């Protein structure tokens, strides 16, 4: 019996980051099981896997839901290393969580050492617009600075939940394909060049 991996659907690894209590787990569970969990229980590190159809192609999405609490900060590096795309979540009702995204962004860039890593800035709890503390313009400005998309979601109403995950894995997927072609193509032009020269 060969122990080689069966050529299954492509696997995209997504990591949820953001401060404690902004709704990372809620988004994940809404995406995974179409349910909204009201009770808050801090996460340590949970992983989920789901098969989805992305643009007519079956892929697997692996979601790592991390701990937002500050006391887990030291261990985050270890987790971030395995990520291929990041959903950086904050709550639009909590300015501190918005400020914290800066730190997360920096940490991710430091660990991945890649400015263009697939990354979405996600403003959660948009159903609580009347309690908004972070103005939309500020969010968009920050997204612009980072050159990443900004999406507002609600884990409660499921607004944009699928969108953020699909957008991210689409990005991851296209980057992977691009890299494959990058890897394949460069030698050719090189040889061409040589021939030309």
């Amino acid at each position: 019996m060969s122990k080689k991996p069966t050529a299954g659907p492509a696997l995209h690894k997504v990591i949820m980051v953001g401060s404690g209590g902004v709704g990372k787990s809620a988004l994940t569970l809404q995406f995974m099981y179409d349910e909204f969990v009201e009770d808050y229980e801090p996460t340590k590190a949970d992983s989920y896997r789901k098969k989805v159809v992305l643009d007519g192609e079956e892929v697997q999405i692996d979601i790592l839901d991390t701990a937002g609490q500050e006391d887990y900060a030291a261990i985050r590096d270890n987790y971030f290393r395995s990520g291929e795309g990041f959903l950086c979540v904050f709550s639009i009702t909590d300015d501190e969580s918005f400020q914290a995204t800066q730190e997360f962004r920096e940490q991710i860039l430091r660990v991945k050492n890649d400015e263009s890593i697939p990354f979405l800035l996600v403003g959660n709890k948009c159903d609580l617009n009347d309690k908004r503390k972070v103005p939309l313009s500020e969010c968009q400005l920050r997204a612009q600075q980072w050159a990443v998309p900004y999406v507002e979601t609600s884990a409660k109403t499921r607004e944009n939940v699928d969108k953020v995950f699909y957008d991210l894995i689409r990005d991851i997927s296209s980057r992977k394909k691009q890299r494959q072609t990058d890897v394949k193509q460069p030698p050719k032009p090189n040889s061409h060049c040589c021939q030309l020269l």
Partner: protein
Amino acid sequence: MKEFDDFNFSVEKYTKDLTRECVGGSDLQQRKKEIEAYNETTAATLKQTCKKNYMEFIQTAKEISHLESEMYQLSHILIEQRNILATMTDGKTSSRLKAESLEVESSTVAEDVENSHATRAVKEMVQGFNGNLEGKTFLNEGALIELDANDYRPIQRVFFFLFNDVLIVCKVKHDKRLDFLTEYDPKKIAVINIKDLDGVKNAINIITPDGSKIYQSITAAGKTEWIEKLEEAFRFDQQKKPKKGQAPQPPTRVKQQSKASTPEKETTPQSPGEPKSLEDQTPEWLSTASEEIQTLVAQRHFEDAQELIKRTQDFMRNENRKKIPLADVIENKVKQQELKLINVLLKELSNSHNRNLQIALRAAKRPLKILVEMGRYRQASATLLKVCAVSLRVAQREARRNNADISELFFCDLTQVACDFLTAFEQQPACVSALVVWCNAELQYFASQLIKHYLTKGTSLETVAKCVERVRKPSTKLTEIGLDISYHLEGLLRTTLESLIEESKERLLDSVGRTEESWQPYNLQTKSNLKRLLLELDVLGIDVRAQATGDTWMNLTQSTVVFIRHFLQLTEHCGCLAKCETLLQSLELLLKELFVAQHSLKPPSDMAVDPNFVMKNKIFLVDNLLPIAIEKFRQISGRQCEGLRELHTKMSRQQGAPLPRQRSVYTTDVF
């Protein structure tokens, strides 16, 4: 005085108004005094409120810590259960591992407590591991299955040993030995709880420096435990000393508020006659002593408070006193604090009562010690005894409901109290007499309970004897600690016991009078019945083998045989009761009258009986039964039963005359 609370209060304006209102200096002085008094009461209320809040805070903190410890215990129990369940499922699902884990288990029973055991286990079990494990804390161990990261098929069985700073991964070989694979630093690995992975259950993902690995636990509980333990290892250095912080300092320690020092500053300039140097003679600690004591009491540092009071008093007693301008004020305040402390301690002491006497006594120890040191013997001893009385009575009530032996409990408790009391108040003869009075009161209560619940009317003498015996035994033991209460106890029970004896006597005599007697030898129908009867009587101390004839016959009437047995049993019980002299007389009377009643039984005149046989029964009673009963009584009670002896002499003389020849046949000395 309302103006003080006003937001716009201005000192200058107030003073101006005051001077304008007042006529003359004396009026002003009066107002000043009033203001000072107000100042003092306000300060006192403030402190009281603070103290009250602080006490509440302490109470809540205590409750929380109590609940916490309960939670801890619960979780401990849960972990234990989980381990048991895990090993059970282990045994079922992986028979290969069973022997393995059992071996490990048996070799490391006390693993959780002693890391060295775990260390040794690793050394013995794991081939190829040479690391040093000295000084590491063992956290967890167990078998897991490593899964392929791509298709989740099992790759191999592994065994983990987790220490605070190393995770040892071993491969489980087919011969059940462990082969060292690799080791990781728990701080350099990341653990992910795999919640959903295509139906793979109980898996965790460990991201290690050499890649991400999936391990599967056999049970869900095992998985949770590993996640917890690995996190614990990760944070081990941070929580090495999970000591709880000391209770925060109370907010009241503002020394500027010190009542003692404020007037001091005011008064010194007013008395220019005194040399200025005197002011400096008041040590800092003394001027704040009263405040400090208050704080210490609030913080429940009673010992420190007491010490400070003592120090202040000692200081005052010396000639230092003259050097301190405000000695009286300070002394007064300290005295008040002392009274307060005593009250608090007494309250504490009276709150220490508990269902369990041991706990109550232990709780009482601390306040008791301080109170004794402060010389409050009488109050302390009275309160302690009150507390003990409650515990004692509750314990008895409970024991009675549970059908436990209340006598032993009572005397044990009594001894305990007496011992503790005597140690606490050794130097105080006055208190010892309080203890004696208390013992008597408790004894009275105990006796009344005993009479009410155990020595009720109609109780058989056997039960009474047993009950009394159970009371007497431990009560004599109390003399070992110098407390003789047996006599008092006998006195308390005497009337009840006497009336019970009287009552039994009547009942027994009545039953003797009503026996149907056929005046025929007793046929026991079978050999074994006869044998059993002979044996039974033998145990009671009388040998009647000589009276057995044929295979199944006794050469005595049935009622005589029954009486012999009954009388001897009764003698035993009476002997027990007669250990106390006061009951001797009524007991003798009972035995005597009963014997006479049986002895004087006569066949009815219309019945055809062998007069010799009737006589033979009577002679047997007098010659054989009576001496044995007398001896038995003497042995058990340690007293001569004069009544029965007289009866014996009298009766032997009576029957000696009519049947002199027969007597020699039946007396025991022939055999």
